[in-house]
């Protein structure tokens, strides 16, 4: 990463180049888990008395200087106290919190990217529904830019955790028309009067709801969420490594 972060603290100006950030972030993770987890959760999750640091946007202090100041001075009117960490250590913690918030592309991920590609297009059958750089299926989101749009945790969760509701534009359904015809696919859009369906044959189908008898969930088209079981741990890690490199920009080049 060529992002440089400039800190001015206690009259001391330090430039921290983030291309060596993996190390400070790891240092920061250890410091964080030791010093901050009385209130915040382990590994940046929500804790008993304080929010997740990589959680909902409304909790975020966005600038590194703000995070630094909050750690050093505490936050007035909250339970957040000033820290006893040294300034260098605070910077490590800032680097760690920053890494929690980075998209997958800017997060170091272990694994063999090329082996992961083979898993994506092969054993895991991701490309049956997902497309990358023009290759693959249509029923699920194009992942060509996935690593720039999603955090690593979001990608990992997509492979392992079920969602409470389907992603907008990808709800799998079975539509039965008033004439008894059945169409299966994902709902691209819908309202009280019409439904736009991309069917499993790859055709866009436009329904007026006056022509439709029923719309039911179609679980067989839903995304599997058990890739940690379907794949060996090495395969899973390689797939994660592959997905976390899918981007239309280069790492660290901003948006």
């Amino acid at each position, binding site marked *: 990463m060529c992002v440089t972060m400039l800190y001015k603290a206690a009259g001391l100006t330090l430039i921290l180049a983030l291309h060596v950030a993996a190390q400070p972030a790891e240092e920061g993770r250890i410091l964080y888990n030791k010093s901050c987890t009385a209130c915040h959760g382990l590994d940046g999750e929500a804790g008993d008395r304080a929010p997740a640091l990589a959680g909902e946007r409304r909790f975020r202090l966005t600038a590194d200087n703000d995070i630094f100041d909050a750690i050093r001075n505490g936050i007035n009117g909250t339970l957040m106290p000033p820290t006893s960490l040294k300034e260098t250590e605070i910077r490590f913690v800032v680097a760690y919190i920053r890494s929690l918030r980075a998209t997958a592309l800017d997060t170091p991920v272990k694994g063999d990217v090329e082996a992961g590609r083979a898993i994506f297009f092969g054993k895991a059958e991701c490309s049956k529904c997902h*497309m990358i750089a*023009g290759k693959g299926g249509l029923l699920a989101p194009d992942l060509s830019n996935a690593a720039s749009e999603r955090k690593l945790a979001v990608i990992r969760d997509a492979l392992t955790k079920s969602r409470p509701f389907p992603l907008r534009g990808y709800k799998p359904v079975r539509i039965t028309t008033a004439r008894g015809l059945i169409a299966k696919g994902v709902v691209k859009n819908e309202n009280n009067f019409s439904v736009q369906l991309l069917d499993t044959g790859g055709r866009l189908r*436009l329904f*007026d709801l006056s022509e439709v008898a029923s719309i039911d969930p179609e679980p067989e088209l839903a995304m599997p969420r058990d890739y940690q079981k379907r794949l060996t741990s090495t395969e899973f890690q390689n797939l994660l490594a592959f997905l976390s490199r899918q981007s239309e920009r280069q790492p660290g080049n901003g948006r």
Partner: protein
Amino acid sequence: MKTLPGILAALSFSALAQVTTEDLLKGSPENWLSYNGSYASHRHTKLAQVSTRNIGRLVPKWTYQVEGAEQLQTVPVVADGVMYITQPNEVHAIDGRSGRPIWRYHHTPALRKGPNRGVAIYRNKVYFGTPDAHLVALDARTGNKLWQSKLAEAEDGYWCPVAPLIVNGKVIIGIAPGDHGLNGWLDAYDAESGKRLWRWHSIPKPGEPGSETWAGESWKTAGGNTWLTGSYDPELNLLYWGIGNPAPDFNGDMREGDNLYTESMVALDADTGKLKWYFQFTPHDVHDWDAVEIPVLVDAPYEGKPRKLLIQANRNGFYYVLDRVTGKFLHGTPFIKGLNWASGLTPAGRPIRVPGVEPTLQGNKVCPPTAGATNWMSPAYNPNTNLFYVVALEGCGVNTKSVDTFRPGGFAFTGTGYIESPREPWQIYVRALDLTTGKLRWEYKQVGSRRYGAGVLSTEGGLLFAGDDQGMFTALDAVTGKSLWHYNTGRRISASPMAYSFEGTQYVSIAAGGTIMAFGLLEAER
């Protein structure tokens, strides 16, 4: 629609089969598969559900607001009920029956150069040009980007407003702008892979035929862009494309000569991009009268013999009839009344210049103005009335000349500090011209309209749809020009209308301001 309604209804649930070369050749009234609706660019729909008889019952069916859009110039493309529209950097797919969005593609980097005039569709892909001068192929069903090919260096100042044209599995696309002294071309790309197959340069290099029409080094910064979609004759396998102005636009001193192939109609072999013939409308143009206006291809008797004609109502104010096999000039006549820069055309079609109208330091009055007697807005041809319909501007401008120096990087290179401040108001008309003589048969004055931009659509139902800068969308009687129906869209119209049909209902659609609107009969007659 009128026969076998049950069978059609049963079939009609499955939308968007692949668009094939055969579909593009034959055309089907239900679909509008290219910018001009067909290779011959008649912009005449065979749909007749909406007609002079029932036009009073035409109502808005839906409205689609394009987020962030200013003055859309997109012409919707529709395949089996799915509509594709563009604004700079974006393609939207819309349910053509309900107006509901299906997907949207947003191109990055999102430069703010516009307009964008629309997509082309072939097999399961839609194609469009971008402000950063790329040709992008998207999956027609999801908007997933499949590939992109660089047309030109955007940093040089190039960009692409052109709706591409599909011919035999090739994507044909032009480029803009000539006003920056950037030379133009026409390109063909493989529709499947995005690989460039040929490029025809509109400005000949030294030693090539036509290079003698450029003084000194002037050919290097010469313009000649290709920013509007052309036409195609499958029998002759010829592409017809209008070429834009020379640069600097208003100062011809440093580019003595006719300046080929600017201000010309060119016929190119669609397989190779080789020039078959050209016809130059305005040799050595100094008024920025791009000759890009849509070439309309008509097979009709001319002087007693059947002939393959090419018609163009040119921005310079003349209506031209050419033989499109040979490029031979057959006939030309002004289609505006106030034309002052030429007293007529020679038997070969070359303008007879009137002295004293060329730009000077103080400026000279010229009619039509630089905006032209017509421009990007589409004309139409109705084979039933044998009339050619065009939006015409009556008015003049004052053009000045200055010394200009080319600067790379997309700076204007126009040779003027020109002003267009006519004392008398401009006035827009819809005019119906006899196809072969160009004689005025009727005109419809768009009262209150000064800026043009809205094109026309002819229909088998005997209608001519037109729009204006007051936001009025009107249906005229194709035979008499009488206004039969109007609707206030509420915003200036700068695009051309089109028609399609889905599930037995005919729609007429147009972009008004930043909105796409679709109209149909209150209750469709089946």
